[in-house]
């Protein structure tokens, strides 16, 4: 992206705001969508969360202090929004987060927006067995290919801890795939 400071100024200036925001949307809507989808699994929920995320980004641009990168800030909002949805979904069904995640995985088999090869389904089932933080770290590194340094800024966790978390997750998933 062009000089971030200049771009933020464009986003804050009422005259250039809309054009700049559209540019931001074109750049980040796709990676943010897949980041959210990896967490919530179905398209409808991912669509809702992405919309809430982008509206929150727009409404809070004036409060963005530039302490982290715009990209990290947006990912942080998206992650929090997705986690909120997961909690609400479990609460609504009166079950734990883990049970809600298992239910969502079961529904994946009939989801029209899931490619549905056996290996892909098994991989999703394996991810669902991980603790929530490990799930996020694994999907961000494996599917989204986000660098550890950037992930550290987004999740506010040290690079070392993230690397350890990822390797543990990989081991667990491989074991799951071996036995299932």
């Amino acid at each position, binding site marked *: 992206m062009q000089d971030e400071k200049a771009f933020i100024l464009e986003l804050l200036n*009422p005259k250039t705001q*809309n054009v700049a*925001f*559209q540019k931001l*949307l*074109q750049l980040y*809507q*796709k990676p943010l*969508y*897949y980041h959210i*989808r*990896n967490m919530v699994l179905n*398209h409808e929920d991912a*669509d809702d969360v*992405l*919309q809430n995320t*982008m*509206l929150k980004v*727009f*409404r809070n641009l004036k409060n963005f202090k530039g302490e982290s990168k715009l990209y990290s800030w947006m990912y942080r909002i998206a992650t929090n929004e997705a986690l909120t949805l997961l909690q609400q979904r479990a609460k609504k069904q009166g079950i734990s987060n883990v049970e809600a995640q298992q239910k969502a995985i079961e529904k994946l088999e009939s989801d029209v*927006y*899931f*490619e*549905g*090869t056996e*290996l*892909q*389904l098994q*991989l*999703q089932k394996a991810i669902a067995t991980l603790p929530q933080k490990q799930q996020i770290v694994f*999907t961000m590194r*494996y*599917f989204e290919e986000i660098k550890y340094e950037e992930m550290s800024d987004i999740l506010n966790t040290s690079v070392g801890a993230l690397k350890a978390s990822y390797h543990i997750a*990989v081991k667990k*998933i*491989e074991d799951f*795939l*071996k036995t299932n």
Partner: protein
Amino acid sequence: MKPIDLENNKKIASGFKVPDHYFDKFEATLMEEILKEQGSKVVPLCSRKKIWISTLAAVLLLSIGFTTYWNNAQENKIDAVTIENYLAQQRISTSELTKHLTNDDIEALEENLYPNEAYLEAIEDHLLESENLEYHSNEF
């Protein structure tokens, strides 16, 4: 089955798909939503201009109206002499006049119109001394 090595084997895709043209539609919907939000928050410059013009017009109309009313009110004020002359020229009976007077007004008039005792005595003395008594008595 060959064990899966996630870090060295070919990457497995997540398998997630989106509806056709989803991102184009999403962008359009979100920008529409943002424009709506801006519309409800920000008063465009042209609207501000309209408000100023309307306020100025209202103030102008009010001041013209007030000035006109004040001038008319001043013109409509009739002084006592004009009323007196008007009444003198009209044939108005006493009963018609008294209709507009209160009891207190009538008493005050009686006091002013009818001479008091000292005044009557003075007239009597003057008449007694006068040579034209008969003439004066006829006048009463």
